[in-house]
């Protein structure tokens, strides 16, 4: 066991998979000798060679096409999109092509591709670096969308994503890359995709969150505990497909819920969670399920992040509304 940051855990997962499966290929802009703009692929080209870990020309669409073509030759590509705001350049390769490979070939072909990409606010990035666009991906049949919030999860979920035989979008929150360390086993291990994690058990309210919002939710839960509210915090971990079983079991226990996301209210996946709860557990609810989200504007200018991004105070306020409904 070692104390690792999330970025180290990601590097570790990539290393494990490069070792275990010779078909795993890593490529993207500046991921080779440079080790990635966030050092996620640090040292990997040196250890595994330029045939396995390589740089590409600066063109996201081309990277997507490269991944599809390599998959058609039996490889297990793990391309990187430098920032997820650049996904628009490669939307066709992802949603129009990768996601549909299995289906459009009548099941005869598949594309075991894992797209890694950082996103998320709170670090004053320039335009289109921090946008939360997981909602776009979650709306595309054929894709799974994974968003870890801890080093331990990041490693296990990334190994599972790479081993999945269909495309997975693996989104890494910039603010969580180095914000804390955690015990991470040195050996390979997996965490099933589509399974949420109960981060904190409680009886009075369920908070469903993912990405950086998990930590904000935990902070809010602590404050609420001081007021004698017992709050359950559930980290979705995979935002498509959702872990319905865990979500509903929690709501049936607590009878109250809120859903927290960093994305704008009209984006993200919070509305999906609310709908699922309404369809499946309305008789357990003692209050409406409310959402904590960002406002429906374009992602803020860096200096406005603090007033725009949802935080533990917003979560506390919304939780109180639901608890006292």
């Amino acid at each position, binding site marked *: 066991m070692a104390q690792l940051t999330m970025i180290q855990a990601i590097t570790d997962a990539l290393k494990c998979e490069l070792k275990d499966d010779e078909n795993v*290929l890593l490529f993207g802009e500046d991921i080779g000798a440079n080790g990635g703009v966030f050092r996620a692929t640090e040292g990997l080209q040196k250890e595994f060679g330029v*045939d396995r870990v390589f740089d*590409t*020309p600066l*063109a996201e*669409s*081309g990277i*997507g*096409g*490269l*991944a*599809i*073509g*390599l*998959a*058609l*030759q*039996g*490889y297990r590509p793990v391309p990187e999109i430098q920032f997820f705001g650049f996904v628009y350049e490669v939307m*066709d*390769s992802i949603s*129009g*092509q990768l996601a549909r490979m*299995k*289906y*459009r*070939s*009548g*099941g*005869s*072909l*598949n594309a*075991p591709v894992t797209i890694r990409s950082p996103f998320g606010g709170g670090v004053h990035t320039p335009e289109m670096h921090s946008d939360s666009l997981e909602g776009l991906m979650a709306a595309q*049949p*054929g894709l*799974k969308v994974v968003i870890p919030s801890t080093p331990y999860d990041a490693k296990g979920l990334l190994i599972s994503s790479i081993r*999945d*035989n*269909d495309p997975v979008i693996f989104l890494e929150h910039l603010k969580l890359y180095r914000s804390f360390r955690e015990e991470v086993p040195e050996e390979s291990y997996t965490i099933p995709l*589509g399974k949420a994690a109960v981060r904190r058990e409680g009886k009075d309210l369920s908070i469903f969150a993912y990405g950086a919002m998990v930590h904000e939710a935990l902070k809010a839960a602590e404050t609420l505990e001081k007021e004698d509210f017992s709050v359950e915090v559930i980290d979705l971990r995979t935002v*498509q*497909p*959702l*872990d*319905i*079983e865990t979500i509903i079991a929690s709501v049936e226990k607590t009878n109250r819920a809120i859903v927290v996301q960093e994305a704008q209210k009209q984006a993200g996946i919070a509305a999906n969670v609310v709908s699922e709860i309404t369809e499946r557990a309305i008789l357990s609810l003692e209050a409406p399920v409310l959402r904590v989200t960002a406002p429906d504007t374009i992602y803020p200018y860096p200096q406005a992040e603090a007033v725009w991004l949802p935080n533990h105070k917003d979560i506390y306020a919304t939780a109180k509304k639901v608890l006292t409904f």
Partner: protein
Amino acid sequence: MTSKNNIFDPVQNLKDIEAKFEMVQILNENGEIVNEGLDPKLSDEKLVELMSRMVFTRILDQRSISLNRQGRLGFYAPTAGQEASQIASQYALEKEDFILPGYRDVPQIVWHGLPLYKAFLWSRGHFVGGQIPEDVNVIPPQIIIGAQYVQAAGVALGMQKRGKKSVAVTYTGDGGSSQGDFYEGINFAGAFKSPAIFIVQNNQFAISTPREVQTSATTIAQKGVAAGIPSIQVDGMDPLAVYVATRDARDRAVAGDGPSLIETVCYRYGPHTMAGDDPTRYRTSETDNLWEKKDPVVRFRKYLEAKGLWTEEKEAEVIENAKEEIKAAIKQADGVAKQKVTDLINLMHTDALPYNLQEQLEIYTEKESK
């Protein structure tokens, strides 16, 4: 501003580049060899086989249009006029080569091994049409213009990494050469020096938009310069020129010398697709007539007849066979079970179905059992 001393003369630079892309022809409109040095000297047997495939494909086009009009086929993009470009290029390939076709390139994948009834099912919109037999190196026709180009760069890189002596071959049209994925595809393959052959079938029109509206470049072949890859413009109505250009690109690719771009200058006699396009709105009969004189089937027939390799009887026999095969394939397609929602759900994932699809599978299984 023009310099007199030729040190700074961008206008001349462009002229110099354009001059490099003169169209290559081997067989003229009368079926005469005009470039003896480039004659691939195919065996008599191969010449006859190539002609048979082109005639078969012309009949396939005629029958497909008529079956579409009867409502027995769905989406169909006519191919008549492009037999040299499509069939002679595929004829230059080997079984282990991988084809990434556009929506008009069904003939190439059929000749590469996709059963004809599957091609018909693809036209109708049935998932069995996309099911590629394991030993056939193709993917279903690409609808997103340009996507096949970036994917071809990936397939070619995969072959290179595997150490295969094969190539990835992809096709687009003149309109497609305006897409970003077109440039990214040829540029990636160039940067990785991958074994890819990029073919642009310049049939003069992208639906109604003439070739001149796509670009001010005088040839599409010269776009290869932007990727730093060898490129050539050939007479796309000349089967021998198309064959030689493709074979040459293949030889260089498997030798490790990287990708090539081939522009085939050709013409489609029919509409863009059978979904209501009316070429008389944007094309004159004079232009049609001009191109009909260049017909690849006619010119190759003349060539083979002069060599004593082709007769009316032989052609009638090929036509008869084509009609029989097409009839049998349509019958086979008719016999394929109708699609159910549960089929579509089960096609979504290789691994276990996610909860939402698992639930929906149960709902539709019950619905279908009633």
